[in-house]
């Protein structure tokens, strides 16, 4: 296959599948629709594997397989795609989680066709976000992803689905409005400097930011704040995380998997792909704030999880806690205040890598956790932690697999969650010891809430809730999903370097560019001050 075509194929394969599904398959034949949708996601996953194994060069730091076609030439909007070490793992994760959660979608029985079509459109949106290199295109995909999600929660959700869907929608929309403003700032800034044709080109914009010619330091701070709020909502970081528990609780299981497994990653991806390279000065300026928010998210999410009685809500808060590590790892960028040089650059890179890995790891572990909650919810139709118990005895295989996935969430070594968390925390001390200690204390709380939840659900003498007769063993489909996730969790936990090999060159390049950009802006400021002093 033509490599340039491959990226477009990855993005639009689900859409084509959705179209065929919508037009050609009889609405009554639900099994065929499920199988077809699953096949579509599987094909997409296969394509991403082809991309990863066949076309992607791990040791090349820059963008690969770039595609540029004019889209709206009058506004300098291009259909511009590309993949690098930062997006590659996320693309893989997206297609994988999509496939697995499609496998988990057999439990959906209402309006199957609409569900499948929206689901596939959602996948297109997600893929587009990760592969777009044009800011405008990125924004479009960002919004494209939003609407199917709204309907998937709002139609197929739980009792308070409308509330949750609207909350999710409004939160995200508020963020994307800020992102839009920032996008226009970049566009007009670059057009005022004559580089109008590259006004949405993320690569060129980043290069301009590295050279210090994109935005003035003050504007960088403004733009960064707007971008950051937009992405932090998605991440989600304290205090804009409250949409997450509601959305998760109300969303059907596969959508929770997607939400936790992929959508949250977009926040982190946006920060590392857009916010940092385009506003290096702003990013550095706000690094402490971000680290603090990350740490607060870790601790706050863990504490809040400790207090939950709804199983899904607990897992949702654990997501808040875990994604705090992502923010923390991204922001541990320490500079020498006098010279503007970056100190301990390698530790920052380790933090960035750790954050990226944490995103992947969380994508697997939290998707697994949500899936496991969904499996039990499908059987007994409640999620009250105090009304479970004894599942380890009733469903040993389920209990074992769940334990594995929850341990991955707990950050047990040998499972994927550990690597991300601990790498981030290790890199934090060089930034700020006090915050590092607070962040590290998260390990205790995490162990606390996960083990306590496991005790209430899986351990104990007997099941205390309703419908004990429905506690049937997992079927083959559920088993294979859970086993796949657990196997990946173990594999990434034991051999994380397979991801780091892909990520490290690109991340290191990004970090160096950001450092140079910061240096330029800082020098500029110093010169201004000196001139002011001379006058």
């Amino acid at each position, binding site marked *: 296959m033509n490599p340039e075509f491959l990226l477009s194929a990855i993005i639009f394969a689900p859409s084509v599948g959705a179209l065929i599904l919508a037009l050609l398959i009889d609405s009554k034949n639900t099994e065929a629709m499920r199988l077809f949708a699953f096949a579509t996601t599987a094909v997409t996953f296969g394509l991403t594997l082809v991309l990863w194994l066949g076309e992607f060069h791990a040791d090349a730091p820059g963008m690969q397989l770039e595609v540029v076609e004019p889209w709206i030439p009058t506004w300098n909007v291009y259909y511009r795609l590309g993949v690098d070490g930062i997006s590659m793992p996320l693309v893989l994760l997206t297609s994988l989680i999509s496939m697995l959660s499609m496998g988990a979608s057999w439990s959906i029985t209402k309006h199957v066709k609409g569900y499948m079509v929206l689901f596939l459109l959602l996948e297109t949106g997600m893929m587009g976000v990760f592969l777009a290199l044009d800011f405008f295109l990125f924004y479009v995909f960002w919004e494209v992803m939003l609407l199917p999600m709204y309907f998937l929660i709002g139609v197929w959700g739980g009792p308070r689905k409308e509330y949750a869907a609207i909350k999710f929608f409004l939160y995200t929309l508020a963020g994307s409005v800020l992102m839009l403003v920032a996008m226009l700032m970049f566009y007009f800034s670059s057009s005022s400097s004559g580089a109008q044709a590259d006004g949405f080109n993320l690569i060129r914009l980043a290069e301009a930011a590295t050279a210090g010619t994109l935005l003035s330091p003050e504007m960088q701070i403004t733009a960064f704040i707007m971008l950051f709020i937009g992405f932090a909502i998605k991440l989600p970081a304290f205090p804009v995380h409250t949409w997450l528990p509601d959305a998760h609780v109300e969303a059907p299981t596969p959508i929770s998997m997607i939400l936790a497994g992929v959508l949250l990653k977009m926040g982190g991806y946006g920060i590392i792909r857009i916010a940092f390279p385009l506003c290096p000065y702003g990013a550095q300026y706000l690094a402490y704030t971000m680290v603090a928010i990350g740490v607060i998210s870790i601790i706050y999410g863990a*504490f809040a999880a400790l*207090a939950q009685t709804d199983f899904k809500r607990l897992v949702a808060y654990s997501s808040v806690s875990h994604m705090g590590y992502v923010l923390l790892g991204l922001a541990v960028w320490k500079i020498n205040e006098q010279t503007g040089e970056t100190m301990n650059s390698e530790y920052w890179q380790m933090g960035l890598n750790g954050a990226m890995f944490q995103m992947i790891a969380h994508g697997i572990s939290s998707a697994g956790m949500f899936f496991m909650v969904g499996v039990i919810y499908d059987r007994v139709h409640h999620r009250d932690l105090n009304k479970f118990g*004894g599942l380890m*005895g009733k469903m040993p295989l389920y209990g074992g697999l769940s334990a594995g996935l929850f341990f991955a969430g707990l950050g*047990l070594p*040998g499972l994927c969650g550990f690597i991300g968390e601990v790498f981030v925390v290790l890199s934090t001390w060089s930034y700020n010891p006090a915050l590092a200690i607070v962040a590290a204390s998260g390990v205790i709380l995490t162990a606390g809430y996960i*083990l306590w939840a496991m005790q209430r659900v899986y351990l104990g*003498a007997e099941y205390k809730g309703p419908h004990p007769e429905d506690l049937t063993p997992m079927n083959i489909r559920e088993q294979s999903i859970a086993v796949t996730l657990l196997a990946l969790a173990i594999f990434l936990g034991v051999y994380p370097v397979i991801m780091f090999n892909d990520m490290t060159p690109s991340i290191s390049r990004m970090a160096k560019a950001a450092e140079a950009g910061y240096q330029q802006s800082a020098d500029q400021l110093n010169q201004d001050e000196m001139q002011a002093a001379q006058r």
Partner: protein
Amino acid sequence: MVGETLRNLLMIAWLLPLAGFAVEIFGGFWGSRKSRVAAWMSVGCIGIGFLCSLSALLIWGNSNSWTVLDHDSHDETHVDTDHAKPADALATDTHPSPDSHTSHPPVVRGKTVYSGTLYYLARFGSLDISLDYYIDSLTLVMFTMVTFIATCIHLFAMGYMSEELTEELVDHSAHLSNGHHVHRPGRYYRFFAFLSLFCFSMLGLVLAGNIFQVFIFWELVGICSFLLIGFYTERKSACNAANKAFIMNRVGDFGFLIGLMVLWTFFGTFRFGETVNDTGEVQAGLFQMLARDETGNVLRDAASGDVKIGAVTTGADPGGNRTIPYSLLVVAGLGVFAGCVGKSAQFPLQTWLPDAMEGPTPVSALVHSATMVAAGVYLVGRFYPMFVQEVLLTIAYVGCITLFMAATIAIVATDIKKVLAYSTISQLGYMMLGLGVFGWGAGLFHLITHAFFKSLMFLCSGSVIYGCHHEQEMPKMGGLWRKMPITAFTMLVGVIAISGLAIPGLIGLSSVFAFSGFFSKDAVVATSLAFVKDNPSHFLLFIVPLITAGITAFYMFRLWFYTFAGKPRDQHLYDHCHESPWIMTGPLLALSFFAAFCAIGGEDGPLYRLITGDQPAHIAHGIAAAAGSGEITLPGHDAIHDVHGTAGTLALIAAASGTCLAWLLYGTTLVNVAEIRRQLSGLHGFLVDKWHFDEMYDALFVKPAHVVGQGCAWIDKTVFDGIIHASAKIMIFVSKWDKLFDEAVVDGFVNLLGNSTFAFGRSLRVIQTGRLRQYVMFIVVGVVALFAILFTTFPG
């Protein structure tokens, strides 16, 4: 080549249990609950591991011609040889080392330390994190010890857990809400799978070549401990204990993580020893980076007082002229030690270990006495070069507090396993104390001997429990030696060993006949005496362990008398109890042999020499007090040797008196124990309640954590969601006004326009009379009016 052979052998020993675990857990054994295949597989894995470890030990010894055991030159030579020659990664010994920190001429004993990298977890520029191995004498001894004890315990467990070999097992300790007992299928295979996983984790911990890898396996043994304590998942107490164990370990690991962060930030590596990376570059490990001067103190920058990093390393200098503040070095040490506190159940994180006795007894023997809890001690020993005086003093005091406190609680415990658990904590305190007062060899020596005799005693208690049909309360036992003689006498071996009883020889202590515990405890006590002599203000560090030696003898003999001697207190129990089968008593005999004789020769014996074969360089001569380093003098070997006789005598006296007291109280009927207990009821209650630690933690940490959690959830629900809802309400309010404005003003205007037009038309309708004549009239009037306007406007 030796290095590779050793590595391969140890890796086989390490990875075989993992393979065993994988096969056992996924191998479909749930289909045949009565099959012992899984157990045999597990035993086979760990047994082969033992053979590998043993052969590795032999190969290692042969490679340096057993100079490690050289009786004559030992004290002199090992000092100079151990790290004088820096550890080399993959067997290329082409790095001559500048022996700048030792004045003795190097006596080449041959290469004894092997370290290298297995594979990389991640690399960021010059930073890399990998899985390494680090093989020295301590590693090999630990490997051999762990695999041997594990093999014995596996065999024992095959008998002990045999009642799990059923399709329907009735668990008498777990109750349903309707009062019935839990019925469940047996989980024989799962137990052995978990045991195998634990062995893998534990051996990985020992083999680990860097502190990060230690942390990884640290957590893994923690989770194995969680799984094994919570093996009876139906029992609420077991689940609670499992959670408690893991979470308290995590508290320690939190400190461990802080230590790791400091080390990582300032040293940029986690490796213990030097390794060659894949570009052929030699990378210094932590032990090389932190150099010490001839007084044993760390090299410090004269101006700032910061500690120099990588001052005397060879090859590539990753440290450059970096420094680390002394205080942070202390923090790093304390952090790593905090992990050890959690793992080894030291004060103040000791409370989980007694609860952990909820697990099956073989687990208690393997995990919670011999190996995992000793891992903390092992890590302190392994990481010894990085500890400065303040850290060591902390370790000593923590050990000291722990050993006393646990011993006092053990006096009043009545559950046979709880007594042993507190005894374990106490003995771990001894080890910590020994390490803290600079008795590196003494502490680790006690670790090995303790592993033998304590696992022996646990297995004996397991045998008793098995024989008594899961009765653990000592007050119901008594006189059991007649029913189970092998158990009773092997237990007695263990009790004597731990109590430190000895028969003084004719020519002083040098030819004393004693079981292993005497020698190792003697070494610890002697070291602390030497330490106290140099630092009189810390006299408690000698007094307390000495007293506790007596208490130890007292409560251990109390246990033995209570259980095996005297008359049966519960005739029904007595009638039904029986000696265990051979598969259980066999391991008891094997272990009792080692518990008795493994430490033969004391500090001149082979075991001690093996352990200390690769001891850190600065141990032998002690550390002189230096300004800014706690002003503590740490004793060298000579100083210890000087006080050895005194300390040994005192310890023996203490142990003997403790034994006598126990015999008086429990072995005879001369003294009414209940009366004493009644008179000291306040103290007794305090001890029975374990110094109220559980209540204190519950009040200080657990409840506040839940309250804070509830608070966070409340904040989320009310504050953040409240803000969102309030803004939504404001929005709705505004939009209502907007609607009003729209309807009233905008629509109103349009409607007004329409309405007025309509009204005007309506009013015009009046003149649309349909009467022809009026129309004509209107036309006329209209014309007249038009003309009137015309005339008035254009008069001309």
